[in-house]
C-alpha cells in the first residue's frame, strides 16, 4: 500500500512537471508561430532567426504587432533581413533591417524606421511640436507647405545621444527640413533640427 502511494505520488509529480514544461514551451512558441510570415523561401535556420527577430522588434508601448513579415536577400555571404511589422489601426508599419551571421548566429539590427504609432499619440506629438516657438516660427512663414508631418518612434539607444535613454518621437516636416524631437511623457520638445 505504501509502495503504491509513493509510486502514485511520483507519477503525479512527473505529470505536473511535464504539464508545466509543456505550458511554458507553448507560451514561448505561440507568438512566433502565429505572427511571422516569410516572404518567399525561408532561409536556413529560419525558425531560430525568426525567434531572434521576435526578441528585437518591439511595438509602441501598449500596442501589439498583428503580423510580422520578413523578406531576405543575400550579400557578401551575409543574410539581410527586411522586417515589416504591422499594428492594428495604425496607418504605417514599423520597418527593421537586420543582418544575420551564420558563423556566430549573430543577428544585428542595421536600421529601423518605426511609424506604427497610435493615432492619439501621433496627434499629441504633433500638438506638442507645434507649441514649440522655433517650430511655430518656421511654419508661420509658410515654409511648412501643406504637408502633414511624419511621426517616427526613436528608440532609447538613439535618443540617449540627444536627450535620455527613453522612447521619443520625431515629428518631421520633410518639405521644410524641420524636425522636433518630442518627449510625450513630459510634453516637451527636447531638440529641434532645422536642416543645419
Amino acid at each position, binding site marked *: 500500500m505504501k509502495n503504491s502511494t509513493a509510486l502514485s505520488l511520483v507519477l503525479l509529480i512527473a505529470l505536473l512537471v511535464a504539464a508545466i514544461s509543456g505550458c511554458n514551451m507553448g507560451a514561448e512558441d505561440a507568438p512566433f508561430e502565429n505572427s511571422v510570415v516569410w516572404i518567399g523561401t525561408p532561409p536556413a535556420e529560419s525558425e531560430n532567426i525568426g525567434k531572434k527577430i521576435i526578441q528585437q522588434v518591439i511595438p509602441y*508601448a*501598449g500596442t501589439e504587432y498583428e503580423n510580422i513579415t520578413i523578406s531576405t536577400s543575400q550579400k557578401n555571404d551575409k543574410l539581410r533581413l527586411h522586417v515589416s511589422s504591422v499594428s*492594428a*489601426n495604425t*496607418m504605417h508599419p514599423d*520597418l527593421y*533591417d537586420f543582418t544575420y551571421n551564420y558563423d556566430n548566429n549573430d543577428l544585428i539590427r*542595421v*536600421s*529601423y*524606421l518605426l511609424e506604427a504609432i*497610435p*493615432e*492619439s499619440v501621433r*496627434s*499629441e506629438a*504633433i*500638438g506638442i511640436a*507645434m*507649441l514649440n516657438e522655433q517650430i*511655430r516660427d518656421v*511654419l*508661420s512663414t509658410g515654409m*511648412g*507647405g*501643406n*504637408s*502633414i*508631418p*511624419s511621426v*517616427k518612434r*526613436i*528608440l532609447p539607444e*538613439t*535618443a540617449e*545621444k*540627444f536627450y*535620455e*535613454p*527613453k522612447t*521619443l518621437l*520625431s515629428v*518631421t516636416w*520633410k*518639405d521644410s*527640413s524641420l*524636425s522636433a*524631437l518630442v518627449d510625450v*511623457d513630459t510634453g516637451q520638445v527636447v*531638440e529641434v*533640427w532645422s*536642416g543645419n
Partner: protein
Amino acid sequence: MKKYIVRIMLGLLITSILAVPNAAAEVPVPEPIMIDEGMTGSDSMYLDMEMDFARLQINPGHSNMQIKPGNSDKVTVTVTNKDNETITAAPFVSVFPYGDNLFEESWVTITPVSADIAPDAKQEFVIEVNIPQDADIGYYSTSIAFTEDVMPTPYPTPYPDYLNSMHFSVDVWTPPKIQIQTPYISGRVESGESYDYEIKLENVADKDISIDPKIDDNNRMYDYGPFGMMSSAFEDDAITITAPSVVKAGETVIVNVHLEVPDDSKGNYNGAIDLNIDDPSIREWDGQVQMNFNVWTQPTEPYTKTFTTRTDGPATIEISSNPYSEYAYAMWMGADTQDKKEPSFDVTLEDDSGEVEMTLVKTTYSGSVSLGMSNFPPWEVDSTGIYQDLSSSYIEEYSAPCAAGDWTLGILPGNADMFSYTITFGPGE
C-alpha cells in the same frame, strides 16, 4: 496654592517664549539665500556657484516603470562621487506635492540604506517598488534624493529641489477588460455629405460592463496650427452616436458614429468620443476614440485658364497633383484602405467655335524616394538604408489640335487639393 499654579504657568509661558527661536532653528528647513539690496539677478547666480554641496553623478537620471497592482519591480542606480572628498549618500523619497496621484513613500525600498562613497568611486543602489493591491491606476511621479543638498532660492519654495536626485515615475496599470478595436477614426470628408463609422468594442472579462459613449467635453485639445488654436471645421452636434449601454461578457458590440458634414464647413475637426467604459483599468485618455476629419469641398466648376496661340498645331497639356501630398494622399484613403481614391482631372479645351477633343496621351506616377542619407534630422540616422517616400505625384498628359486664336482650358480636379499645369505648343515627340 493658586500662587504656585500661577507662578508655574508664568514660568512655562516664559520658557516657551524663549524656546521658540531655538526650536525653529532646529527644524531642518533649507535656509533661503537672501539677495542684498542693490544686488542684480545675475549677481545672485554667483552665490549659487560659490555654495558648498556634494557633487554626485546619478545614472540613470530618469527612470520609469510599468507595474500592475500587487506586483513589484526594481531598478539599479549607479551613483558616482565626482567630489574630492568622501560623501555619504543616504537615498530617500521626496514626494512631489502635486499631480493627479501622489506617490507613496512606503512603496519604495532602497538598498543599501546609505553608503560612504570615496572620490571617483561608484556605488550601486537598488530601488525596489512594491505596488499594493488596492493602489489606484495612474501615473505616479516623485524624486529620489541621495543627499540633503538643495538648490538655493532667493525666495521660499513649497518643496525643496534636491541637487543630487533622480526623477522616478511609476505607471500603475492593469490590462483593460474592454478592448477598443477601433481606436481612431480619420479621413477626408466632403462638406454637405454624410458618413457612418463603426467602433468595435470587445469585452474580454467574465462580467458585463456598462458603456455610455459621448463626445468628450475637452475636445480639440490638439487642434493647433502655426498661429495657435484653430477653429473647428464643424461643431460636435454634427456627430450622432448610438450604442448599447452594456457590453456583455465575451461579446463584441458596435458603437455607431454618424457624421453630417455641414455645407459651410471648412478646415479640420479634431475631437474624441469618450466611451465612458465602467472599467477602472481604463484611464480617461485610453477610453477615448480620437477623431480627425479634414473637410473637403469638392469643386463643381472647373478652374479655367485662357491663352492665345499664334500658330496652328497641336497643344500638349500636362496636369499634375501636389508632389508633397504623400500623407495628404493617405488622408484621401481614409482609415479604411479599401476606400482608396485616386486623383483625377476632367479636362476641357474650347475656343469660340466650341470644344475640341482631347486625347489622354500619357499617365504618369512620379515620386522621390530617400534612403535617409541626407537632409534628415540626426535622430533619424538609424533609418538610413530604408526606403522613405519623400514626395509623390500623379500626372496626366493630353494632346489637342489647336488652331491659332484664343482658347480656354478647363480643369476640374478630383481627389486632389493642389495641382499644377503646363501648356506647350508645337509638335509632340
